[in-house]
């Protein structure tokens, strides 16, 4: 490379240039070939090394967190397992959320699925339908199974079998900017028996929104996550709105029922008609004080407190109508049908999501526990603000529809929800979406 660089300073007449480009090309080509060879051999060497040193390897994949501490904790489960199981090597690998699920799918096609991996709750029916994960009945002890609260117990079970263990529980409530609410002399309720109705919430929202020459300078409410069923389904459920029939076989008559249409209308009005919530705002709206309320889980509460140290954050319940609501669902951890040593895989799952691992994880991550025994060991959960999340989840959890076509249902309803946000007529939009979903669901009957 050095020689080529010197040559390049020569005046750019034809000859010198010809010599230069060839030599550069050659040198660089040699470099490229060397890199190639190194790559091929290093991969071969690694494979050989693994075979010689550790006869048993366990692959564990999870969805990478943006907070290093949590990734370290999950990597740590692998190291701890290696220590307690000499001769076993745990390869822990993490991938970004957006592509994780695609990567898992492709790995299955190549018969290279991880032995143990994160399964997002709504995808369990799909993985069961496509025979990707093994049932854990008989592996989980009865006593341990009874230790789960009803909601997570319900989530991990599908068609009568247990398929994966929850890492934690997660449910969103309303986070609020304490200073803004103080200014408006409003005290949001901290106990479930005093929670706001949706009309109360509307009044509060009108009181805290700030407008200047027709433009909103401070919003009343914004979501933390991009819109999806997880985010807006509670707003439907509070007024009796549904997405699918209870047996998840059809959407028509449920997604476009009068109750769902009304609930969607109320939710959509927050955006275009009432101008209380922004449609697709810049990130960190709540952290920077540009909205009074946001919808977030305890993990988000911790994250915001850490990143925006000047902000005083409070938590209150999602408003209620016919019922109280909070969304639910969490990452689970399951075993692939392609895992060669299922017993060992189970031992690993148990070391992560069993009592000890669960306690360690939940405490560090700031999520809510799924096991009663873990709750008993975390006294802070009985105190505000954690009690808001805990009480909400214990009494108001809304489960998302359980169908192998979950992604299709979520995408279709979410697209409809965006049109509704923009103030378009609700009923026809939902009619079309319901018909589309029914067509897709027919595949799985």
């Amino acid at each position, binding site marked *: 490379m050095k020689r080529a660089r010197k040559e390049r300073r020569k005046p750019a007449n034809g000859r010198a240039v010809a010599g230069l480009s060839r030599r550069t090309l050659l040198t660089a080509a040699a470099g490229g070939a060397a890199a190639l060879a190194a790559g091929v051999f290093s991969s071969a060497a690694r494979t050989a090394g693994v075979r010689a040193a550790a006869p048993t390897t366990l692959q564990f994949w999870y969805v990478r967190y943006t907070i290093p501490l949590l990734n370290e904790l999950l990597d740590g489960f692998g190291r701890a397992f290696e220590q307690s199981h000499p001769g076993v090597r745990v390869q822990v690998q993490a991938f970004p959320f957006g592509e994780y*699920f*695609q990567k898992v799918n492709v790995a*299955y*096609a190549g018969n290279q699925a991880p032995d143990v991996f994160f399964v997002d709750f709504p995808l369990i029916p799909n993985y069961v339908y*496509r025979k990707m994960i093994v049932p854990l009945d008989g592996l989980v002890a009865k006593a341990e199974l009874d230790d789960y609260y009803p909601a997570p117990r319900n989530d991990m079970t599908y068609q009568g079998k247990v398929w994966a263990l929850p890492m934690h529980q997660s449910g969103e409530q309303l986070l609020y900017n304490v200073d803004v609410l103080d200014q408006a002399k409003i005290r949001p309720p901290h106990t479930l028996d005093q929670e706001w109705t949706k009309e109360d919430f509307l009044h509060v929202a009108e009181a805290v929104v700030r407008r200047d020459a027709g*433009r909103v300078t401070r919003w009343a409410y914004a979501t933390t996550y991009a819109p999806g069923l997880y985010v807006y389904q509670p707003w439907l459920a509070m007024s009796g709105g549904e997405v699918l029939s209870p047996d998840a076989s059809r959407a028509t008559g449920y997604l476009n029922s009068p109750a769902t249409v009304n609930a969607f209308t109320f939710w959509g009005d927050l955006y275009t008609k009432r101008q209380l919530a*922004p449609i697709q*705002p810049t990130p960190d*709206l709540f952290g920077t004080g540009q909205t009074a309320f946001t919808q977030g889980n305890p993990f988000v509460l911790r994250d915001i407190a850490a990143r925006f140290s000047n902000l005083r954050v409070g938590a209150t319940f999602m408003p209620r109508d016919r019922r109280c609501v909070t969304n639910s669902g969490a990452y689970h951890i399951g075993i692939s049908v392609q895992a060669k040593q299922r017993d060992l895989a189970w031992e690993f799952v148990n070391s992560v999501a069993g009592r000890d691992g669960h306690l360690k994880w939940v405490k560090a991550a700031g999520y809510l526990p799924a096991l009663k025994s873990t709750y008993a060991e975390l006294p802070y959960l009985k105190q505000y603000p954690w009690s808001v999340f805990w009480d909400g989840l214990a009494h108001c959890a809304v489960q998302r529809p359980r169908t192998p076509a979950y992604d299709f249902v979520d995408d279709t309803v979410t697209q409809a929800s965006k049109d509704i946000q923009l103030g378009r007529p609700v009923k026809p939009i939902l009619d079309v979406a319901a018909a589309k979903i029914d067509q897709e669901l027919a595949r799985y009957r």
Partner: protein
Amino acid sequence: MALPAGWLVRRRRPELSAYVFVLPAVLGVLVFGIAPILYAFVVSLHNYDLVNPHPPFVGMRNYAALAADPIFWTALRNTTAYALMLVPLQTAAGLGLALIVQPSARWIAVLRTAYFMPVVVSYVVAAGLWEILFATPNGPVNSLVALGHLPPQLFFQDPRQALPLIAVMSTWKWSGITMLIYLSGLHEIPLELYEAAEMDGARGARRFWSITWPLLQRITLFVVVVNTIEAFKIFTPVYVITSGGPMNSTTVLVFHLFREAFRYVHLGYASALSFALLFLILGLAAIQFWLLREDRSE
């Protein structure tokens, strides 16, 4: 393919060296291009979900489903509209930029770098950046809009603005490359031609149309063909920013394909879709190549 008898003997020498020349490239193309395409064709005849090792054979049913799928037709319409916006925009931008940055002054070299800058950011990232810049109602661009006392715009949330905005974004992202290719082409034009033209009194626009433009035609054709292909393969900004919305206004073919393949795991249907796309673009490319033939016989 029927070949005349004795073709091997007659053309042996040049042919042999030709095959040596194309061997590395053709090997790569066959193993990592054609083989997967053939495999994808086999997949399109099955109901494959990536997991089942023995997917059921369904014959041409995936192709029939494609023809009956209203979203496919919507996607085809959107993609065509996008190509019709992007190709002229991109070509004009690339050529225009190449012409204005051709002088070799130092400050113009800085500009050249400036115009090329968006190229070096990955597409995913560039799309994410535009999503934030055009956030509504309070993103940076809407802040600028407010300076002009205009109401906040919906940008990517507006069915009329979303697709054109994606075309503008792609032009922003890629015209640096088109500029580069045109610069290489301008480099090939002998200076003597301009001198001769100058003696004839041709200047400015007239000289552009009589010398530069005709001599760049081969490159323009390349740019148009490639941009047409790329336009029909538009995916990333839709995936990152709009997910096909609002009101399906940005549902384009490859996004539909990707969603069917990797989110809904209808691999068979997605493969059928990719073949439809393949033949569609091949047809378009064939037309453009036919134009090239005309050009060559001159």
